[in-house]
């Protein structure tokens, strides 16, 4: 999210979608700040993307299956 302004009491922002910039309404995400990532649907930000949680999920994916390998379980992976 790049720039924030106010239209008649409604917070609006410019959001960069990987190079395409669009105007987005922030009425539903009162606590987002410039620099945050948001999920936008039909011109409305619905939530602030939880970056810590995104990284945790990726770490979880990396660890999937590791335990089996460490335990040297004989696994049929087709």
């Amino acid at each position: 999210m790049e720039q924030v302004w106010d239209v008649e009491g409604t917070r609006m922002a410019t959001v960069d979608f990987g190079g395409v910039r669009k105007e987005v309404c922030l009425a539903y995400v009162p606590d987002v700040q410039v620099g945050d990532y948001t999920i936008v649907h039909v011109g409305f930000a619905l939530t602030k993307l939880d970056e810590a949680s995104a990284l945790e999920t990726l770490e979880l994916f990396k660890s999937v299956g590791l335990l089996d390998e460490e335990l040297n379980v004989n696994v049929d992976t087709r």
Partner: protein
Amino acid sequence: MKYLDEFGDADLARKLLDDIAETTTQPWALMEVCGGQTHTIIRNGIDQLLPDEVELIHGPGCPVCVTPLETIDRALAIAARPDVIFCSFGDMIRVPGSTDDLLCIKSRGGDIRIVYSPLDAVRIAQQNPEKQVVFFGVGFETTAPANAMTVKLAKQQNLANFSLLVSHVLVPPAIRAIMDSPTSRVQGFLAAGHVCTVMGLSEYEPLVEQYQVPIVATGFEPLDVLEGIRRVVTQLEAGRAELDNAYPRAVTPEGNPVAQGVVREVFETCDRSWRGIGMIPQSGWRLNADYADFDAERRFDVLDIMTTESSLCRSGEVLQGLLKPNQCAAFGKECTPRSPLGAPMVSSEGACAAYYQFRRLEVTA
């Protein structure tokens, strides 16, 4: 783009697929509820990479596809009026009504505009005070907050020339209808992530309890979908049925309370017909009495337009997961995205369009 590309990583996808294959010991039928997930699955060939035992049944979560024919016919009647500017999301424009689609009305001189957001329609209403501006508000719980805020702003601004043609649908009653259907084979659900972003998870607890079916809130990137599948299969193999969240970067248990508040202020729950499926009790939202003045169906007196669906298109069976798109005899022949027989061949979230676009042209029945 950050937090998108990482969730399409091929090496991690292989890990998740291997884990699903290791876990699976018997056949399971899972339903992805949302059309966005269907497109991720078909575009990336996820259904073909999974073990043969894991079947994905494509759910009814394409808002354009389930909008009742009657509502499309009412939209066409309103859009054809010379005093109306009719605004809609792009994929609604070519959805066939009983005789026409919105594009036909446009080619005959109707003022039909494709907008990105309902707020664009409000702007058009402000700029055209001599015209009636109608926005076609369809969608699931994800889209409802945008439409609710738009009507709320229109009321605040006394924008008398703006109205909404509303046909909102809700996920939990659809899951209930699927589980109650005697023909349903679904044993676990990938719930639509962004619906949960808005509504949270509590609505799914009673469904998990009553039907003893795993429900996992799932995102839309390839790794998100694989993780949703992995968690459902893990539960099924262990004989468990729980509510789980595989999309925590965008879904919290409580959802978005601000959005829920505005939705409750503007809409009320109602029975809703789903195209190809039929009436599902208490499965929709409509404008409540406080906002009835902004209801396009009342303003333009189209409530007496009633239509029934033709039997040519088998999209009802596709939407209920009883038929794969390429098992329909018309698929890729009489029915293509250029000349669609039914809505699922039109919409960017439609299962038939996904199969067509990503070259699943082989007809299997």
